[in-house]
């Protein structure tokens, strides 16, 4: 069984981060698995499954020149995990509200209470500085019906948070 490490890299965004990091890993004989890479608040963030080659013992050493050159902070965890363990989401939850503390906690708390499993969550602050708007898109898996999930988040409307629960029908063709 393949041993995977979860590699986290964070630093100020600039062109070439992915190319230089993955080139260093490739030259060190590493294999990449699933990854999430996204710009958040002007930083570029990478979370990536890595195995083989110098992993995990000498991985940080191999990455240290490129991390120093690009100003990236590196974190490494050995993880139990593997490829081909996808869960397909069957529910999408979209949230929009005036940005204020507690939106994520309230929405996800209501969903967790009915056993909703978040597979993916992306959130962003839109609007302008005077009137920021919090926008969140959750994809997850739930055995509860759409009606039960709507019921679970129904009380949030009173807090000025619009929550839309919709089924995700995955088309196989």
């Amino acid at each position, binding site marked *: 069984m393949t041993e995977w490490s979860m590699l986290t890299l964070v630093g100020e965004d600039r062109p070439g981060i992915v190319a230089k990091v993955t080139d260093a890993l490739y030259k060190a004989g590493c294999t990449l698995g699933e990854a999430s890479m996204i710009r958040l608040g002007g930083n570029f963030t990478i979370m990536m499954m890595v195995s083989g080659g110098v992993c995990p013992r000498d991985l940080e050493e191999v990455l240290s020149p490129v991390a120093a050159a690009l100003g990236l902070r590196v974190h490494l965890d050995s993880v139990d995990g593997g490829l081909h363990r996808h869960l397909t989401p069957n529910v999408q939850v979209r949230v929009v509200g005036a940005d204020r503390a507690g939106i994520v906690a309230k929405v996800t708390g209501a969903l967790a209470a009915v056993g909703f499993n978040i597979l993916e969550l992306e959130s962003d602050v839109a609007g302008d500085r005077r009137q920021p708007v919090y926008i969140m*898109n959750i994809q997850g898996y739930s055995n509860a019906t759409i009606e039960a999930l709507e019921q679970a988040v129904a009380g949030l409307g009173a807090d000025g948070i619009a929550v839309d629960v919709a089924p*995700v*029908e*995955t*088309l*196989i*063709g």
Partner: protein
Amino acid sequence: MAILDVLTLPDPRLRQASQPVTRFDEELRAFIDDLDETRRVGPAAVGIAAPQVGRFQRIAIVDVSAKKGIASHGFLVLVNPEITHWEGFEIGREGCLSVPDFTGNVIRATRIRLGARDPLGEPVELEMEGFEARAVQHEIDHLDGLLFVDRVVSRRTDLFRRKVYQTGRGPV
């Protein structure tokens, strides 16, 4: 009837454009039966296209009637299909018999009109929307050597999408 082998990525044959059907004979109809039997085994596919089983002719089957609560035309065999009108677009999640263990979000037209032939060669005109229209667009892509992975968009994309309706133009 027979269950046919399904080509899967990275098989380059899936990238090949298929040719129009010119002979509407018993051999064609027997193949369509096999193609549908292949669709029905394994993961519940709502559609299948001939090139997915290595026959590079413009033949697709779509049947979304197993999905509850949506409008559909039932079991459809589309030979030489051609979409003549697109309207609206929306994001939906797709997977594919030819792309195991991956699903992704794809933008498709919400409503389409199309012309095709049935297995006897008779012309048919159809108008459809939603899930059924999505399935037909997915299958017709196969006939042009395209897979849904060629059209996957970031999940983040739909945070910024607004519904825009255009008539007489393809999805952007």
